[in-house]
């Protein structure tokens, strides 16, 4: 039965998160944009305490939960992320407890691994995690990954070597808390994607160093770092997945990454939607303050150009949001969603950029001014079309699926 009513439980959480966004994020948005790399500890500590008090452990990520009855984990996460990103996209990325690294653990780890790695989020202090995929010589082309993992059979340890870049929250995961990173490395460089495996590297592991902090166009409150692995040793059990993944030479490795993307892409899309909604709302407020209100229901031929733009933005925003919700709803209901997941990412990445760019344009010099947040959101938006698969990579994923092509058939 088709239903667009937000589930009651999620609506309640949404209201709570909204007050956080209004009171703890918006007032400090500009400050953390202008003081790059400063950690918004007030927000971090509050979120840690609050999510812990809400009972789900200090993690926003969907847990294992009960087996029977409808599941809402990913829907709830998408709604929360949308609202937090409405508050501030950069500060949201500083939310402790369960981001992309733990998403990888959730998607590919064994029950034991989930317990071992995720329980830290339920401790007394905020903990972070991160995902390490990109390398200096390769981004979207993940089959070209060179970071390697060699098994030292004597000590039953993996020895990791390589360099990872563009690691979101890597500094907080490895230096500011007792967190972990998930490193994608190859156990067989000749096997391409099939050789790839995810490894958990915990904070303070010798041989793992944060080597650089990037300066970015937007989302400046969030740290983006490089990580160097030099003979970094981790226990055998830190390879995510069951024992077979180690020996199986089929394409299980990259499938793990893909399963993670199916879960994370709609969440990144939700982030884009939150920012787009913030922009549209502020734009309408600023226009109203100058005496311009948007009239609905008119034929296009009777609209002003601004009305046409704003209504178009609203169409784009709402329709993209429902793509996101459908993707997470499928996730919660155990339906394969890699097509929907990538579609939501394509659409949301487009929409947030179009809306933030248009908003600056419509407000003219006021939009360009750092007195207001529109110019910041314009900068924050661009990342949504880049990370977690660029718009082009996600178009490829969508195209291959609708055409029934393997990657060798549509390059």
């Amino acid at each position: 039965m088709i239903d667009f009513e937000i589930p009651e439980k999620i609506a309640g959480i949404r209201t709570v998160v909204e007050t956080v966004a209004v009171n703890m994020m918006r007032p400090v948005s500009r400050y953390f944009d202008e003081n790059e790399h400063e950690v918004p500890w007030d927000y971090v500590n509050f979120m840690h305490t609050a999510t812990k008090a809400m009972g789900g452990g200090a993690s926003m990520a969907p847990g294992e939960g009960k087996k029977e009855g409808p599941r809402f984990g990913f829907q709830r996460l998408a709604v929360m992320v949308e609202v937090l990103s409405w508050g501030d996209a950069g500060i949201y990325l500083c939310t402790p407890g369960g981001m992309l690294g733990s998403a990888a653990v959730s998607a590919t780890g064994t029950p034991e691994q989930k317990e071992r790695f995720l329980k830290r989020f339920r401790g007394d202090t905020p903990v972070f995690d991160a995902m390490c995929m990109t390398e200096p010589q390769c981004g979207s082309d993940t089959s070209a990954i060179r970071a390697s993992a060699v098994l030292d059979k004597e000590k039953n340890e993996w020895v990791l070597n390589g360099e990872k870049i563009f690691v979101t929250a890597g500094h907080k995961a490895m230096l500011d808390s007792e967190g972990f990173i998930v490193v994608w490395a190859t156990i067989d460089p000749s096997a391409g994607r099939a050789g790839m495996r995810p490894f958990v590297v915990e904070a303070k592991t010798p041989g793992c160093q944060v080597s650089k902090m990037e300066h970015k166009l937007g989302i400046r409150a969030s740290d983006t770092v490089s990580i160097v692995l030099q003979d970094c040793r981790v226990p055998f059990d830190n390879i995510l997945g069951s024992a077979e993944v180690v020996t199986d030479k089929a394409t299980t490795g990259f499938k793990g990454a893909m399963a993670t993307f199916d879960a994370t892409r709609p969440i990144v899309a939700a982030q884009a939607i939150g920012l787009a909604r913030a922009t549209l709302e502020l734009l309408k407020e600023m226009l109203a303050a100058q005496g311009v209100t948007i009239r609905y229901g008119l034929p296009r031929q009777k609209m002003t150009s601004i009305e046409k733009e704003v209504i178009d933005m609203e169409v784009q925003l709402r329709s993209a949001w429902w793509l996101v919700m459908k993707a997470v709803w499928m996730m919660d209901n155990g339906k394969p969603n890699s097509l929907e997941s990538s579609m939501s990412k394509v659409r949301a990445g487009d929409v947030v950029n179009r809306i933030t760019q248009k908003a600056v344009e419509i407000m003219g010099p006021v939009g360009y001014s750092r007195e207001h947040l529109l110019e910041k959101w314009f900068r924050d938006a661009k990342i949504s079309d880049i990370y977690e698969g660029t718009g082009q990579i996600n178009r490829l994923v969508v195209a291959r699926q609708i055409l029934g092509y393997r990657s060798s058939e549509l390059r």
Partner: protein
Amino acid sequence: MYSFEPSDEQKMLIDAVSRYASSDLRKAAHDAEENKELPPKLISKGWELGVLQASIPEAYGGFGERSAVTGVLAAEEMAYGDLAGALAVGLPGLFALPILLTGSEEQKKEYLPAIIAGDWTPYTAALIEASFDFDPNDLKTTAKAEGSDYILEGEKILVPFANQAKAMIVYAKLKKETRAFIVPGGSPGVKVGEAREKYLGLNAIPFFKVTLEGVKVPKTSLLPGGFSPVLDSSRVAVAAMAVGVARAAFDYSRDYAKDRDVFGMKVAQKQAIAFMLAEMVTEIEAIRLLVWEGAWAIDNQKEDAGQKAYLALSGAIDLAMMVTDRAVQILGGHGYIREHPVELWMRNGRGFTAFTGLAMV
């Protein structure tokens, strides 16, 4: 609780409509457009699927309950087959649904059973006027009270099957508001244009200009309810059909691109084409959800249902043009040839800005 899956009952209906639309309607579409006529048997067969009948309660001769969600699901499937066929099959709804939604008990009892019980019969509606800035909420056709009657004055265009209609709903401005009036066929002062109107698309449907010169109707012919439920219903219906046309164009151009060789590979293996297709399908999925949301808001009597329906149509208008244009582009020269259906879909696709009032759910 969010759910993006039709009920089992709705799935059965969609299946039935889909079989009819993709075999019967689609196969007849080309000739119907070229010969400017839909075979009556084809329309009857579609009518017998009972989409409208299922949205009219038993008390008025139907066997169900009106659901805008079910309506848009069916409308999309119908239009996937052929837009002209979809509009023709749904024609009696243009008369019956405004009565169901906003009519008096007497009006419902008088008209609905007769329409619903029998074969497909042309009942129609006259909303659209010949003006670039035509606005359903600001009509030029007027209604004035005069004793126990209303006098209707004005000119309507794009009135489907006006020459054969048993009766029509005429929309006119009464005290600054758009209101609906029941006007029996052949009422004095109602002049149906002699020649059929000619349009960019939809040539299979006989459209006429209808002139109203001092048309006198009794006060009981005014539908007591307001216009907005009717407008909302039409907006989501037209939007759903736009999604259907877009989906047809997408499927066709995707299949063509997978079949056509170029530079030693298939056209679809070129990213320039594959990316166009990826964007088309993404936009179709997104706008379809917006249409569903609009229909859901109507069914659940949400305060902002009107705004949602409006946004859905706004998105669907752009969707239909974008997707049909790209479908023609993907077929290249072949897309421009009338042997392939994509040029017809492109012509139909351009029309959705003007089609409000031609479909209801």
